[in-house]
């Protein structure tokens, strides 16, 4: 079985607006086990709309969500790690949550769509990421041509502006298969080496991964699933037919994740399957 790290995962909580949250979480973990996911790097976006909007989570909802996520990562260790999610509209709260989250074991910062990626309000958060040595996972709408309801979606160009202002921070551009025109994203971020991209999303267009490989290369692509592990498995099975070398495949499956996140973040998870990150970096 292929070893993979899912760098874009989500879980639900008792505060989510769905009664089957435990079934949902169990299904994710079970499917992950069958696919070969050794670690889910996950976040919870507030109450998922129950008491404040998913992409504009209130500070209280986001604190509660992060608490649940940190506890769940502890409980499921080492197969679950946490992103600390923040709403950039509340700068002081966001920075405090980041400090608290890193102390609780979070290994990255999750930004959804509460503000455009090139907004000045994200500068303090991007600087904090550099200070703590963790990446930022930014929700992206591939080629945003208009405003979409319930989110201030950003696209590759907007993230590129932020990445240019913060060359010491690594940004993980979310889900190239997650909606919008993925072909637009590749040239938008090609020259920003501190932007890497995850392959997640329900989109499984032929040509999408090949195009990303051509534009940014395997060292800047990370396998992930987001909301649909079925399309994650499909991409996992399709990757060997892209012409990528075995080394490139291992990079996309898990080695890029080892490089991206703080040292040792996946050592325990990988040791369970005999992978040796130190020998391959």
């Amino acid at each position: 079985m292929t070893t993979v790290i899912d760098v874009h995962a989500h879980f639900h909580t008792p505060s989510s607006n769905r009664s089957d949250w435990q079934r949902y979480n169990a299904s994710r973990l079970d499917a992950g086990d069958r696919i070969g996911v050794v670690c889910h790097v996950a976040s919870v976006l507030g109450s998922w709309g129950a008491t404040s909007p998913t992409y504009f989570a209130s500070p209280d909802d986001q604190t509660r969500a992060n608490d649940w996520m940190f506890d769940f990562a502890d409980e499921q260790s080492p197969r679950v790690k946490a992103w600390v999610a923040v709403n950039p509209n509340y700068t002081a709260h966001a920075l405090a949550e980041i400090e608290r989250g890193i102390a609780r074991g979070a290994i990255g910062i999750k930004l959804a769509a509460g503000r455009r990626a090139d907004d000045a309000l994200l500068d303090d958060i991007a600087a904090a990421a550099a200070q703590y040595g963790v990446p930022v996972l930014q929700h992206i709408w591939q080629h945003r041509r208009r405003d979409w309801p319930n989110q201030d979606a950003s696209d590759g160009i907007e993230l590129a502006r932020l990445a240019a202002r913060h060359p010491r921070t690594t940004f993980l551009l979310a889900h190239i298969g997650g909606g919008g025109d993925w072909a637009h994203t590749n040239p938008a971020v090609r020259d920003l080496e501190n932007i890497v991209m995850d392959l997640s999303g329900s989109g499984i267009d032929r040509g999408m991964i090949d195009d990303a490989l051509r534009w940014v290369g395997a060292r800047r692509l990370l396998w992930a699933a987001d909301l649909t592990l079925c399309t994650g498995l499909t991409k996992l099975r399709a990757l060997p037919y892209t012409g990528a070398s075995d080394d490139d495949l291992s990079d996309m499956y898990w080695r890029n994740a080892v490089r991206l996140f703080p040292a040792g973040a996946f050592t325990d998870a990988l040791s369970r399957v005999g992978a040796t990150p130190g020998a391959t970096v």
Partner: protein
Amino acid sequence: MTSSSMADTRPVDVTSWIGGYPFREVPHPDPEILVRVLDREGFAAAWVGHLPGAFYRDPVPSNRALYTAVAPFAGVLLPAPIVRPDWPGWTEMLRDAVNAGAPAVRAYPAQWGLGPGHPAMAELAFACGEAGVALHVTVRFEDLRQRHLMDGAGDVPAATLRALARLAGSHCHLVVAGAGRELIEETHWGLTPPEQQRVFYDFGWVWGPPEDHFAHLIATIGAERLAWSSWWPLRLTQQSRALVDLLPPYTPSPRAEPNLADGRSIFGAARCAAKSRPAAEHRAGTTSATNR
């Protein structure tokens, strides 16, 4: 369908095409590549359409290109040509399809502007039922969020599908491609049990874990309503197999797979219904008065 493909127990893909797509490049959409991919992904054969023809006005040149392209691969690439029922000469298109051994014909009501209950679509459904070929309707080619500005056709709504399935006295076997859970449920549960038996859903767009829509549909509408597909050349062909492999443990495992439908079983049912020509199942459905 040839005897060799009938002997092959691997599923027959109900949704694939050859040819280019007008709104983005699709890699090498050539029939000889499709043949290799089908074998690699565990399909015995495929119902194959001509992708550019979905966007033509007159389907005849598209069908001509399709018949020529798949001829060298008879038994594996099974033509599923277009029949446009609001176009002059459509009955000849259907006759040609039957003569070419097509297991199904394709219709694109959204691209042609034929809304729910359009009499031309009803006529086509009746004719397909009589001819013993399935009627294949593509709900969408791409996710709504990524469509080209010039692609304004929209999705085929459930109302169109229900109207086709409800035609009183029709024997038409309908295959719906590109539907997610909501559209499938809105169609299936809006039909009587006899009507439900003539509708199949390509499951390639249904979500697996952790939402588990696919497992839910197997448990509720039944595996026999859900059909294998590859969606080549538009989408990665591994998706149907991935969905089956990720079914939760409480549903049959790959060693005891659910009894899913495929092109072979659907074509068999369509032919059987045409031969037996049973009396109308009920009189409650939409009438066939279509005098256009």
